[in-house]
């Protein structure tokens, strides 16, 4: 599937939402092979799916049950990065062929992020630290100066799309910031358990939110320098991820195994549990909002649900039995 090269800054294009044909491409990384374990036979197709205009899901790339995140080179949609069990994979031809970018000294990539202002730079979160590439992942080098020797399990990494080299990472012992392309890291918020997700607001680059395992959800209004908890969000159970609604600055959603889906429509002042219509014992693995404001929730051992009323009512989707590890939005590729 060869995509034409498109050189557009990612978010600058937030034109009004076209209800008819969406102005965005919407991707998920999903494992559909229930209870897969190394050695059992894969009977389904897993990996990256792109939503089709008809609302279905089209798989591309390898059949890999372990893909945890995906990112694209903003300049060329054919350059795709995915993190997975083996580490970081890269495709230069839209997913037809791939290359493993790390050796044996890195494994189990958790998330990958491309610096929109320095698109050759790729940042990867690993179970034992952070690696960076400055050559489109042809080579990968650990850059962990400032991370603690123990406690640098990194679940999430996001690049501040306002300034090259400014990156936030969610680790076992807190949120870490670099402003020099990962030459140096410093902790900006301490936690005792893993920071599971970091998101930069598509509406106000200064606004960042985080979902953590035992410190609830956090918000920063100064570009991630300081963080304060959302009071309305419970802290004792793990929050798996958090997402903005690209169509409405006041709407956010949180996914959690224990709490299911939590949403706010007032910028986080109040949060409501939106599990009615989902299977009981919600076990939400991941939430996402597509560019049309549709809210998705992937439920463990169930399927992918979507809601067009931001969680009040839910509908099972046709990606039955899927477990979505990642939602990703990109402006529509001009073909």
């Amino acid at each position, binding site marked *: 599937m060869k995509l034409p090269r498109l050189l557009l800054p990612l978010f600058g294009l937030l034109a009004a939402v076209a209800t008819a044909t969406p102005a965005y491409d919407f991707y998920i990384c999903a*494992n559909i092979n229930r*209870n*897969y*374990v*190394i*050695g*059992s*036979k*894969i009977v389904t197709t897993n990996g990256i799916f792109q939503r089709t205009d008809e609302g279905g899901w089209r798989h591309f790339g*390898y*059949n*890999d*049950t*372990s893909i945890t995140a995906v990112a694209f080179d903003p300049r060329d949609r054919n350059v795709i990065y995915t993190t997975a*069990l*083996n580490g970081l*994979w*890269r495709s230069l031809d839209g997913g037809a*062929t*791939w*290359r*493993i970018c790390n*050796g*044996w000294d890195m*494994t*189990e990539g*958790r998330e990958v992020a491309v610096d929109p202002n320095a698109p050759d730079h790729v940042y990867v979160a690993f*179970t*034992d630290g952070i690696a960076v590439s400055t050559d489109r992942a042809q080579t990968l080098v650990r850059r962990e100066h400032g991370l603690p020797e*123990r*406690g640098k*399990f990194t*679940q999430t990494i996001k690049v501040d799309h306002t300034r090259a080299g400014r990156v936030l990472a969610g680790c*076992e012992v807190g949120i870490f910031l670099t402003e020099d392309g990962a030459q140096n890291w410093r902790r900006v918020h301490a936690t005792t358990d*893993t920071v*599971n997700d970091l998101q930069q607001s598509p509406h106000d680059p200064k606004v960042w939110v985080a979902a953590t*395992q035992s410190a609830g959800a956090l918000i920063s209004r100064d570009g991630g320098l300081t963080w304060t908890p959302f009071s309305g969000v419970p802290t004792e159970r*793990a929050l*798996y991820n958090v997402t903005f609604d690209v169509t409405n600055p006041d709407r956010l959603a949180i996914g959690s*195994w*224990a709490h299911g889906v939590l949403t706010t429509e007032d910028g986080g002042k109040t949060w409501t549990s939106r599990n009615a219509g989902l299977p009981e014992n919600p*076990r939400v693995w991941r939430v996402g909002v597509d560019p049309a404001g549709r809210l998705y929730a992937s439920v*463990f051992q169930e399927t992918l649900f979507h809601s067009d009323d931001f969680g009040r009512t839910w509908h099972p989707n046709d990606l039955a039995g899927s477990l979505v590890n990642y939602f990703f939005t990109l402006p529509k590729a001009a073909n």
Partner: protein
Amino acid sequence: MKASHFFRSAPALLLAVTLSAQPSFEGPAPVVTSVPAEDQRLAAYHARVDEVLQWRAGRVDLNNIPGTMDMASISILLTLGRDIEACNERVLQMMAEPGTGPFWMFPAVCVAFTGRELLSPEARASIREAWRTTRQLRGDTENHWVMYYASLYLMSELYPNEPAETWYTGRSSEENLAEAREWLIHWMDTTTTVGQGEFNTTHYIGEYAIPMLFMATWAKDPAMKQRGRMMLDWMFAELAAVSLNGVLRGPNARSDEGSVIERWNALASYFSWLLFGNTPAPQHYGGWGLYFAPMAKNYVLPEVIHRIAVERDGDYVQRDRARTRRFWRYSDVLSPPVYKTNYLRHDYAVGSTQGIVNDVIQAHVWDVTWREEDPRGKHPTMFSLHPHSSGRMMQAQFATHPEPMPVGVTFEGKPSYDSPDKVLGGSPYEKVFQDLDTVIALYDIAPGERFEHINGFFSKDLCDLTEDASGWIFARGGNAYLAYRPLAPYHWIPYLHYKGGWAKVRDDLGGQVLTSPHLKNGTIVQAAGADEFESFEAFKAAMRALPLEFKLEPVPSVRFTTLRGKNVAFTYGETPVVDGVPLDYAKWKLFEGPYLNAEVGGRKLTVTHGRLQRVLDFNTLTIKDSVRE
């Protein structure tokens, strides 16, 4: 994708094909007390290999190729040089939808190499193509990586000089070969300096031995071939030294619900049967054992190792160091050291670690296991444990969220992980000390843990089980006398047996579990040989007379004079003291005992038995065999 599994029930291709010769796993238990003369020793080994090859080849039905030919049987037929056309046909079928992951990779390598001259060009091309089209998951566990990288190494050597786009990795043959070689050397370096990660595994021994046999046979680079051969010696020397009459017992870095109780019923017994001939082969040769057979004749078990397994002159203590699985989180050390103690006697063996969580799944910390003439179906073991199920501990060693794994693994070959009456697994709240055939296990379970009790396993095969007024529970196991002292009140629940990790149902075969619902707890076990006492009563009297003081608050603490006259003082969380001298873990060697010796960091193992000695020196890749005049 999270936890690995290995011992699936043997591939379901086994048809009731009539068999002329009775396979060993149905025959009588071998009685072996000495190693036969060298020529007969090798001939007997080859005969056992041939038995496996013929057994599996006998099960192939050419009228039902898809139903009876897996990659094991294809490799075996190629090794025997027969039914080549059927092999070609089946290879093409299987490569049409290649599997992924290490458990597909090494069987595919086995077919590629056993068929490198016999398979048709199309069949060989189809195997090669699968390595372009199918992304191979590398897995998250040490044994996965050994299989993954040995397979990638060999395929890259078999097809050198091929560009990146012809490999699923997107890397050239040379890049793949270099990466594989580097990791294999790194793994061997780690294993020969600070110890095996998955030590004494009852099933995953096959996932190390088979790839190493393939390297020792097919690696072109002489250094890697030599390394494969040396690692085989290293692993089988350890199996020989810590098996009791061919049966591997605890401690095991990894075991499973079936073999932690029915100690013989494990793939390790296949290797004991094949190499030492001193225990029955497991059913269908353990399934995976079939992949060791095709090239088995290219490995000659050194006589010194064979003698260690079969000819023990007297009781002996073997102290070794191993390491835990690496901790991604919640640990100051990536791979903390495991201090193993094994005491082997004729009638029983006692083994333990210091009570660390070496692996969050399927670990087994300590037990007393007694000898059974025919171990099949027997549960010849006794131990206690804290049944620990914790999402946090899963997160320590797996890149996962806290909630999914405790339940998830129960569908992935670890059915008992989250069961209160489980008998498999380690716990951060268990500390163990062993001196010869005395084990003291202390527990200080944090409130709020999933299960706030300890379980003690009492086998169906115990005789004269009596709860003595003294507080000791006495029993006889085989020719061993056992005394189990629970340090807190308890009650009995029935023991329900899982035949193996993939068993769906639990069988009531007898036996019971002592369960003691108290956070601060402890177990003392003392074993002895029946021949040491006039009678069982005499043993009981001796046990009652042993000075014992213990308290559970604020933390469990024991002062006990063992049956062997050692004064042991052991408090939870503190270093045990024996005869006034605190145990010095710092001086614990990589291997130390009458048969195996190695310094930590030395990369050199000396294997000795009588006048025979083999030295495996990874510094110079030297295997040195010498005989004292």
